[in-house]
């Protein structure tokens, strides 16, 4: 074997990983690049570079309204789903109780059900109870499908917790409440934060369930879907790109803070 092939075979997995990451990022790079496109109507062909779209992100009709709705729904859904899911995760991760396997199935089912089935059936229910779909029906739907993901994420964190830490706290004169407040909760917090982030991104990104249960309330994915038929305004790229960058910064900062707090220098 000559040196080139040897180098190639040794680094095969790295080359592969590089190609894989490139594949993952092509559409994102494309989206970011075309957010600077000086096109006026459909954002299909590169016309020229401009800052205008970034300076005027609400320039396209309804785009910021849709974004605002998505953000509001995302925050509300995350808030409720995180609370409900975390409570459930503690019950599942900490206690032996009757009916556990049924609860397990109930948590698993929404993750095993195609979104279209959940969206459609929920709409059927809202209509049959005379509920007009709108902002709150979206929030309700999002909380529903986020709960399971929160439970799974937080439960994993609880399971990885060393029970001796809580025993040590009890041994050091902390009663149940204090133990929970001073030891359990701070140690599970990163898992709850990760779950909240996941819930927000699931909610913010959801189209299928939202499309069924939104009535005439617009959300950002819905806006993209509808305008994609006619050509997407570059402002949509601006919003997508900035959401991407903001989330990336939050995660990286979170990681940095987490590492610092864990004491790794």
């Amino acid at each position, binding site marked *: 074997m000559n040196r080139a092939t040897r180098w190639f075979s040794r680094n095969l997995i790295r080359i592969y990983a590089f190609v894989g990451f490139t594949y*993952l990022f092509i*559409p*994102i790079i*494309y989206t970011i690049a075309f957010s600077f496109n000086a096109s006026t109507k459909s954002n299909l062909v590169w016309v020229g570079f401009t800052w205008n779209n970034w300076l005027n992100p609400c320039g396209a009709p309804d785009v910021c309204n849709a974004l605002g709705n998505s953000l509001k729904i995302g925050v509300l859904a995350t808030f409720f789903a995180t*609370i409900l899911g975390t409570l459930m995760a503690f019950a599942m991760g900490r206690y032996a109780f009757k009916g556990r396997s049924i609860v*397990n199935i109930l948590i698993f089912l929404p993750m095993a059900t*195609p979104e*279209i*089935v959940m969206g459609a059936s*929920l709409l059927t229910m809202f209509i049959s109870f005379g509920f007009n779909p709108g902002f709150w029906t979206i929030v309700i739907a999002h909380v529903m499908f986020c709960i399971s993901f929160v439970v799974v994420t937080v439960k994993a964190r609880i399971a990885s917790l060393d029970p001796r830490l809580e025993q040590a706290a009890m041994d050091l004169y902390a009663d149940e409440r204090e133990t929970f407040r001073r030891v359990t909760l701070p140690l599970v917090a990163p898992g709850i934060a990760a779950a909240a982030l996941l819930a927000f991104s699931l909610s913010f990104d959801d189209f299928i369930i939202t499309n069924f249960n939104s009535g005439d309330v617009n959300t950002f994915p819905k806006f993209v879907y509808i305008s994609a038929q006619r050509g997407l305004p570059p402002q949509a790229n601006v919003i997508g790109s900035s959401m991407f960058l903001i989330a990336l910064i939050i995660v990286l900062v979170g990681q940095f803070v987490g590492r610092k707090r864990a004491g790794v220098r």
Partner: protein
Amino acid sequence: MSTALLHATAHEKKPLITKKKLLPYWLLAPGIIWLVIFFLVPIYQLISTSTQTQGFGIGTYVQTYRFSNFIDAITSSKAQLIRSFEYAFLATVFALIISYPLAYAVAFKSGRWKNTLLVLIVAPFFCSFLLRTVAWEQILGEQGLVIKFLRFVHIIGAQGHLTATPFAVVAGLTYNFLPFMTLPLYASLERIDIRMMEASGDLYANALTTFRKVTIPLSMPGVVAGTLLTFIPAAGDYINAELLGNPGTKMIGNVIEARYLEIVDYPGAAALSLILMVTILILVMAYVKRAGTEELV
């Protein structure tokens, strides 16, 4: 200290664990109520709707226990149903092939870049799923550079396309659910003790055998979780088929969506939804059973 004293007090206090028995139920209650009202009840209504028939006027239905709705649904949408599972299967296989080395590289070959790479795997989540799909549509579409290049070098004829093909739909599905595959794979690979692989090498297994006999079996939980998380949403998806496909690539999701929102045939749509859900559940159960994973979540 007298022994009399010891005996007098020893059994006065009862064990203390019992009174907490209700706590897990209180913790579960809000979430369960939510899931029951907004997940189980709708599914129940879906079941009930699936055997109804058209009443007087559009959108009004009466329960007639017409089970032939299911047969009608299957006969009219057989092609889309089969296609959905084909596409979802292909997308899952491709995602696995792409993700496994990727997750492996991040878990074992990335050194101090591990956390950064991990963030990069999750990162596409943060850019809207629809935007990314639209981006692919435009990259591969008639105005994009890729198709022009491929036509120029005659890999594709002047009449050929990349979008509006089954290839594009499967590629889109693969792309969109890739992180769902990579993350669980990474999580289970990362947990493998690297010494086990070394031990295998020490016991005369070559790299390939080590991979086959040690790495893959130990990462099985990740493979199971990843394939499920990819297959399930892919089978029910209709966005990729809508944006990247043509009328001949419609999936079951497209049919259900159209029956609900355009044709307003609720019983037919409900029957199809149920068929889709039950088929997926059966496949998942069989698969999980075969893979031998105990707890699902």
